[in-house]
């Protein structure tokens, strides 16, 4: 079966890269796209000429998509960032992210709605990254008026915030005691906070931080030594919430709905709801969005009783992410996430056929050989990118992942079970805590062991 969506993704990406490298005018490209779209309609019954026009149209759409994302609205908050005239603004809006508290200060994304300077008031839009030393009790969705100067954010290209504001005194942050956030996001953040507090209460600090990173996507608390040993052994990817987590969530929610005897078709929607909720809990980073879209695609396939394909769902996930934010194409997490899964989808079957693993008679050996091939495919797919971005090559990763991934799977399962047990089955909590601590200990020791093997890694 041909992976048509895969071709579409490649063409779309080429369009994005074209705009990234060369200056392109939006109106000119838009007119070209309109002509191509009309040509496609006229040539719909033709063979090759239709397909060539379609490919050109998708390429142009990729280019337009990035160009459009570069265009900031005339009333956007970035228009108010000044370099010489540092005017003080009063900005009304609401907190658009989960506030992060650290060492007496708090940072959050603030969705601006109205801005006022002197006698002039305007409606505005866009996110501001706010650092405040003034308030420590802030919640997602809270409506505020901020008072201060706007600055250019450090990484304008990669970040979503268009401006930066620092607040030092408490009177520069006024609470309006109203709430504007979405109920769905509130639920996700509430669950995240609850799970985080369960880990903090039940586990040792190190185990709680590892669980926070692997299950909730909060990597701040991981000690540098642990992180370094994982980078050296090529197993740091287990700290990223990705496909396996989504699979576990789908499995647990599916089983729960089955036990509750919910009809099969409604169950699919329930599982999908849980996946999207988990996506928000895990900060909606690129790998988890990819996994959620892939999971949703597979669930829809099951619902419609259609054949599902890993390649098609991967391509659809890539298109979804790029249409929403084409700048993600240049982010390391997007590239690594898709490179590893694409390598497993495309390289692994070839390697499997070449190595003739299926001819092995002993099932256990066949399983290990298959695991090694999957690990090798993922390593091959990402080795170039890792060498380019992180200046390190870890050949030991192929072997290390064979041991680390099953342990990481156990840790995710036990962490999630611990969170659920603390609410529904407190009797079993002690057992889950001991098991979780053991798995964390083994995981760290193994990672450290693999990083200390001679020639395990090499810095470039």
């Amino acid at each position, binding site marked *: 079966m041909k992976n048509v969506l895969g071709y579409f993704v490649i063409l779309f990406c080429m369009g994005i890269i074209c705009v990234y490298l060369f200056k392109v005018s939006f109106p000119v490209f838009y007119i070209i796209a309109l002509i191509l779209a009309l040509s496609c309609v006229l040539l719909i019954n033709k063979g090759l000429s239709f397909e060539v026009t379609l490919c050109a149209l998708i390429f142009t759409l990729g280019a337009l998509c990035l160009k459009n994302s570069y265009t900031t609205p005339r009333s956007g908050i970035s228009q108010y960032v000044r370099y010489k005239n540092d005017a003080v603004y009063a900005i009304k809006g609401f907190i658009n992210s989960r506030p992060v508290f650290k060492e007496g200060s708090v940072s959050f994304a603030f969705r601006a709605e109205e801005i006022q300077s002197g006698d002039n008031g305007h409606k505005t839009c866009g996110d501001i990254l706010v650092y405040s030393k003034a308030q420590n009790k802030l919640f997602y969705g809270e409506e505020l008026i901020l008072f201060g100067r706007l600055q250019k954010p450090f990484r304008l290209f990669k970040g979503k915030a268009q401006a930066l504001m620092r607040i030092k005194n408490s*009177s520069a942050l006024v609470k309006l005691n109203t709430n504007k956030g979405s109920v769905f996001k509130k639920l996700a953040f509430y669950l995240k906070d609850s799970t985080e507090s369960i880990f903090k209460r039940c586990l040792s600090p190190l185990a709680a931080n590892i669980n926070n990173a692997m299950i909730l996507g909060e990597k701040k608390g991981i000690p540098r030594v642990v992180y370094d040993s994982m980078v050296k052994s090529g197993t740091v990817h287990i700290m990223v919430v990705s496909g396996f987590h989504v699979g576990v969530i789908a499995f647990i929610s599916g089983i729960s709905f089955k036990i509750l005897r919910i009809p099969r078709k409604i169950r699919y929607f329930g599982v999908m709801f849980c996946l999207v909720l988990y996506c928000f809990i895990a900060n909606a980073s690129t790998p988890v969005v990819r996994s959620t879209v892939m999971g949703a695609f597979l669930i829809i396939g099951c619902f419609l009783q259609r054949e599902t394909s890993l390649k098609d769902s991967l391509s659809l996930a890539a298109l979804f992410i790029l249409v929403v934010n084409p700048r993600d194409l240049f982010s390391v997490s997007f590239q690594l996430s898709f490179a590893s899964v694409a390598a497993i989808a495309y390289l692994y079957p070839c390697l499997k056929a070449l190595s003739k693993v299926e001819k092995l008679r002993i099932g256990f050996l066949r399983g290990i050989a298959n695991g090694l091939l999957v690990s090798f495919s993922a390593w091959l797919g990402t080795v170039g990118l890792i060498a380019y971005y992180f200046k390190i090559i870890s050949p030991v990763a192929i072997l290390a992942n064979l041991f680390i991934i099953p342990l990481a799977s156990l840790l995710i399962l036990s962490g999630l079970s611990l969170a659920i047990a603390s609410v529904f089955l407190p009797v079993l909590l002690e057992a889950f805590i001991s098991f979780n601590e053991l798995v964390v200990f083994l995981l760290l020791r193994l990672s450290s062991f693999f990083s200390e093997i001679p020639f395990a890694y090499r810095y470039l």
Partner: protein
Amino acid sequence: MLDLTNDERRVVIFILLIYLLGLGINFACKHFTPGERPGRFNQSLGKININTADKKLLMSISGIGDRLSQRIIDFRELNKGFKSPEELKGIKGITEAKFDKIKDYIMAQ
């Protein structure tokens, strides 16, 4: 090359046309919609009242340190409060330039 059936072609073209149209509308909205003028919210919000602020709060204003905040409090007690922020200029250490820098953060009520 792509082996799409006629129905698949129609669906793909339909989706792409909708997307193209959406991109155009989005671009036009960004480019041509001017910022509207809403009703203004309370001007004094977010400003420090120099008649009631304690030393710590005054020091949170960029440019006002330990000694200057003490002078402001002394001046306030001596003159039974400030009638306008401009009266701050009478305090030693608050020059015209410094007043311009802090005036947006303060009010006298």
